[in-house]
């Protein structure tokens, strides 16, 4: 039956840890440091901080604030603005759901690698380093020739994936109070492990050279539009915005609680973690450069390549504590990912569904976990990496950027950014000025549309994404199809009857 209460965080610190945990994820380790190196080190950091101030923080305040104001997840927020806008809340729900279907698989790989690191299964020394790539793409993934050559399920990955979803179910089925308490540990543990990894990295030969590549500023790069694209895109991706979840996390905040300061703390903590993680990553990059006598350009420092090939290479070459370092690294990866996964699943999907249909928490949590597990099996096949790449491009790039830009436009111009600002200022630790209104109305949407145009449409309309061939379709076709289908489903959910199970107007503390 309908909820007569709105669930709440157990306290401010639990909310902050949950929000930080959702933002701090795999991208902090495998995307930010490499982008910094690629786009001019210290010069990139200037653009990145500017992006954080004018784009990331206002966007986060908007999602927290609107969630708290309407006491609903994303669809309920946009329904509150006007029934005709509800679809704009459902579209990012699909973004969150599709992201977590493959994100959980990456977490499962981390569990597999945590186990195989104990014996350095891909080998030690230069032979092991040379074998790390073949081990990942061959032994672990059994990578096929293309998206349509499915190959068989990789049962070790399937087993780990089931484990991941069982863990996620038990974290989520009791709601925000338990999520907040778990998040404390899923944030603190990876922080502690990153410190251990940093110390290990800095004690390896060549570390300083790697850090020079990471940090040395090239201010001439500031005139390069690609640098600004990289900085703004990283801000857009790293804060877990545009995925519906932050609306729901904001809706669990008490009505008189702070919004502005929480958004600043969450954003700064996330970006500080990224900056710190760069030291752990590039000290290892420097070590590999020296150990294998290769230039920095030949060391993959981003994405799956960093986590599952480059780092194993470093482990193989370590003079001591190789297995321990490997286990710590992949356990760190697991913890970095797991809180983003339950954010996506609970805040992004389960909370909006419960808002709309009034379903019981345990039941809907079990159903969503099961569906996501079944869909995720595609990524455990031999063609899984190809599908992961296509779906990632679809939702984690186009999906969140487009829905984020549209959400800011509707909130800014239809609901009124000034009304939202007054609502947030009324209960926040410090007040924000009218600059916020123009950020939400113009700057954030413009920034997100610049990123999606410069890094997306400009390339994927001209050239088929990834060079994939899937029957009569190419990679770009699949992207547009998924976006169109999820948009259509969003309108369908907007029209769906709620069977009279509407949330009460007066929301009481649970």
């Amino acid at each position, binding site marked *: 039956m309908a909820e007569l209460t709105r669930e709440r965080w157990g306290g401010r610190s639990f909310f902050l840890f949950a929000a930080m945990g959702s933002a701090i994820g795999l991208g902090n380790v495998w995307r930010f440091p490499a982008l910094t190196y690629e786009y001019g080190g210290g010069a990139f*950091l200037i653009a990145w901080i500017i992006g954080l101030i004018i784009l990331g923080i206002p966007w986060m305040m908007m999602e927290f604030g609107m969630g708290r104001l309407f006491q609903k997840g994303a669809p309920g927020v946009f329904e509150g603005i006007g029934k005709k806008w509800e679809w704009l809340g459902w579209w990012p729900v699909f973004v969150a759901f599709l992201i977590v279907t493959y994100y959980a698989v990456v977490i499962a790989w981390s569990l597999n690698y945590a186990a195989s690191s104990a014996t350095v299964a891909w080998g030690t020394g230069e032979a092991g380093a040379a074998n790390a790539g073949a081990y990942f793409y061959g032994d672990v993934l059994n990578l096929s020739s293309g998206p349509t050559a499915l190959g068989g399920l990789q049962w070790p990955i399937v087993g780990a994936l089931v484990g991941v979803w069982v863990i996620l179910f038990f974290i989520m089925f009791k709601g925000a109070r338990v999520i907040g308490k778990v998040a404390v540990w899923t944030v603190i543990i990876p922080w502690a492990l990153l410190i251990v990894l940093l110390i290990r990295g800095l004690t390896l030969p060549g570390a300083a050279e790697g850090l020079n590549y990471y940090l040395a500023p090239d201010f001439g790069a500031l005139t390069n539009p690609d640098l600004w694209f990289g900085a703004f895109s990283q801000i857009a991706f790293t804060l877990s915005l545009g995925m519906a979840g932050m609306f729901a996390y904001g809706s669990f905040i008490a009505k008189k609680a702070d919004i502005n300061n929480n958004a600043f703390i969450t954003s700064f903590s996330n970006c500080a973690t990224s900056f710190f993680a760069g030291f752990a990553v590039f000290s290892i990059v420097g070590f590999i450069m020296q150990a294998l006598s290769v230039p920095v350009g030949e060391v993959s420092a981003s994405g799956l390549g960093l986590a599952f090939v480059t780092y194993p290479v470093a482990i193989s070459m370590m003079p001591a504590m190789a297995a321990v370092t490997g286990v710590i690294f992949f356990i760190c990866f697991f913890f970095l990912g797991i809180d983003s996964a339950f954010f996506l699943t609970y805040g992004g999907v389960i909370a909006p569904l419960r808002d709309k249909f009034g379903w019981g928490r345990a039941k809907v949590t079990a159903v969503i976990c099961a569906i996501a597990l079944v869909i995720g099996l595609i990524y455990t096949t031999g063609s899984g990496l190809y599908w992961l790449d296509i779906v990632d491009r679809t939702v984690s790039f186009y999906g969140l950027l487009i829905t984020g830009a549209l959400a800011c436009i509707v909130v800014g111009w239809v609901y009124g950014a000034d009304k939202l600002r007054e609502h947030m200022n009324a209960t926040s630790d410090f007040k924000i000025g009218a600059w916020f209104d123009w950020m939400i109305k113009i700057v954030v949407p413009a920034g997100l549309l610049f990123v999606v145009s410069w890094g997306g449409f400009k390339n994927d309309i001209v050239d088929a994404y990834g060079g994939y061939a899937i029957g009569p379709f190419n990679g770009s076709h699949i992207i547009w199809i998924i976006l169109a289908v999820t948009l259509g489903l969003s309108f369908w959910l907007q029209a769906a009857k709620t069977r009279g199970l509407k949330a009460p107007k007066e929301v009481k503390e649970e």
Partner: protein
Amino acid sequence: MTTAAIVTTIIMSLVFIIGLVFCFTQIGKGGKWED
């Protein structure tokens, strides 16, 4: 590490430390956590 890399490290560390210290000193000045 080069001087430029060290300077970058110091400046960025100060940005985050000052930013977070400011935020934490503001806690409790406005909002109340309980309804």
